[in-house]
């Protein structure tokens, strides 16, 4: 560039020395001026290629100087061409720098767009995640609802089963109760039936009883008369039997004289008395007899005992012989244990030697000694 500076100088000097033509007009230079002015109004060129533009301006000045000093056309044209080309260079540099700025801007822009893309991707991912989360939550909620529904169903089924069980139990109980009631009712009906039957029966019986009573009354009336007669007869018979009324009932005493002395044989008188008794007993079959043998205190007790038993047996044998059933007759031997009189006198001893026949009442009862 150093050379560039002094070259025009040398040219100028040459021009001065040569003293060549001084033509104030040059078409090439005019064109260069026009292009230069146009570049000066382009802010891109002014701002981005100031050095080159200034260089072009300087060259243009030299051309002007060369022209005004009347230098050769060739010299002026040369400078004008150089200036023109320098303007073009300045313009190209401005264009390049503009494009470079655009590249730089575009890089930034692209980075921004990429960032936006990343942001959008992240947003989309977040949205998807949120969606997935939501879906999962919904699914979980659905599952939970489903489980709850199943549980409710199970619970309901259990409840219904319980109700059914309860109902079945209740029905069973009711059935049992009804059955029991039916049984009770049946029993009750049977009881009522029985009661009714019984009542009917009773009514019949009552009727019968009434009839019977009426008949009985009639009969009783007749019986009373007969009884009266019978009682009179019985009393007469008892009187004949010489029966005495005592605490133990009617007692017939067969005295010592009716037996052979110290023997168990009935005398003829004794037999007659026993016959009367047998007749009485045969007439009143409900009566029983207890035959007790007694002795006086003379002699040994064993002899007396034997005698008393044998005499009682003798009476018994006689009665049986006369048709009285043996099971109506009981015998006892008491020896000298129950005297009725003093044994110190002969008369007393005779009274003590006896057989007592105790007659039972009509039911066959005898008060034992």
């Amino acid at each position, binding site marked *: 560039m150093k*050379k560039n500076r*002094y*070259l025009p*100088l*040398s040219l100028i*000097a*040459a*021009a001065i*020395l*040569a003293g*060549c033509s001084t033509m104030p007009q040059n078409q090439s230079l005019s064109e260069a001026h026009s292009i230069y002015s146009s570049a000066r109004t382009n802010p891109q060129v002014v701002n981005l290629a100031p050095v080159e533009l200034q260089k072009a301006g300087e060259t243009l000045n030299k051309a002007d100087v060369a022209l005004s000093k009347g230098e*050769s056309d*060739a010299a002026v044209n*040369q400078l004008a*061409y*150089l200036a023109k*080309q*320098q303007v*073009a*260079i300045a313009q*190209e*540099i401005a*264009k*390049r*720098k503009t*494009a*470079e700025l*655009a*590249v730089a801007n*575009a*890089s930034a*822009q*692209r980075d921004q*767009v*990429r960032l*936006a*893309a990343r942001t*959008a*991707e992240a947003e*989309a991912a977040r949205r998807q995640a949120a969606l997935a989360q939501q879906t999962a939550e919904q699914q979980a909620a659905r599952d939970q609802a489903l489980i709850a529904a199943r549980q409710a169903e199970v619970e309901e089924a259990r409840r219904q089963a319980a109700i059914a069980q309860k109902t079945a139990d209740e029905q069973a109980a009711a059935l049992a109760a009804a059955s029991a009631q039916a049984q009770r009712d049946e029993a009750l009906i049977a009881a009522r039936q029985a009661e009714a039957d019984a009542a009917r029966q009773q009514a019949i019986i009552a009727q019968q009883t009434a009839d019977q009573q009426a008949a009985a009354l009639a009969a009783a009336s007749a019986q009373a008369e007969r009884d009266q007669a019978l009682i009179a007869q019985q009393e007469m018979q008892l009187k004949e039997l010489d029966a005495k009324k005592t605490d133990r009932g009617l007692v017939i005493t067969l005295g010592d004289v009716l037996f052979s002395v110290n023997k168990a044989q009935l005398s003829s008188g004794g037999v007659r008395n026993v016959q009367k008794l047998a007749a009485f007993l045969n007439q009143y079959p409900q009566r029983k007899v207890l035959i007790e043998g007694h002795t006086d205190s003379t002699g040994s007790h064993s002899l007396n005992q034997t005698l008393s038993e044998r005499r009682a047996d003798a009476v018994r044998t006689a009665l049986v012989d006369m048709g009285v059933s043996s099971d109506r007759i009981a015998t006892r031997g008491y020896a000298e244990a129950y005297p009725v009189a003093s044994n110190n006198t002969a008369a007393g001893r005779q009274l003590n030697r006896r057989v007592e026949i105790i007659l039972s009442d009509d039911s066959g009862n005898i008060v034992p000694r």
Partner: protein
Amino acid sequence: MAVAAVALMAGCASTSAPTEQMAVSKAAVSNAMSAGGNQFAPLQFKSALEKMDAAEKAMAEKNYELALRLAEQAEVDAKLAAEMARSAKAQKAADALQDDIRVLRQEIDRQSK
């Protein structure tokens, strides 16, 4: 200044051989070549080459004044060709970037839909 003095002495027509300008111009042409002037500014580049050839020829004929002028013109022509190539490349890169951005935007628009 010595050269200028010589020039002053030699008068209008007589100038010394512009070897330095020739070297500067050759460097500018080679620079334009490597910048892609051949491809992006073929007219300017071709002009620079032709002027350079002519300058060489003038040098060989000892017509130094013509050689200087041609060399000077070849230098600016080569410089212009180099700058044009550079600005064209820059413009291309900017356009490509804009294209990228446009495609990217479309891509994003499609994705976000």
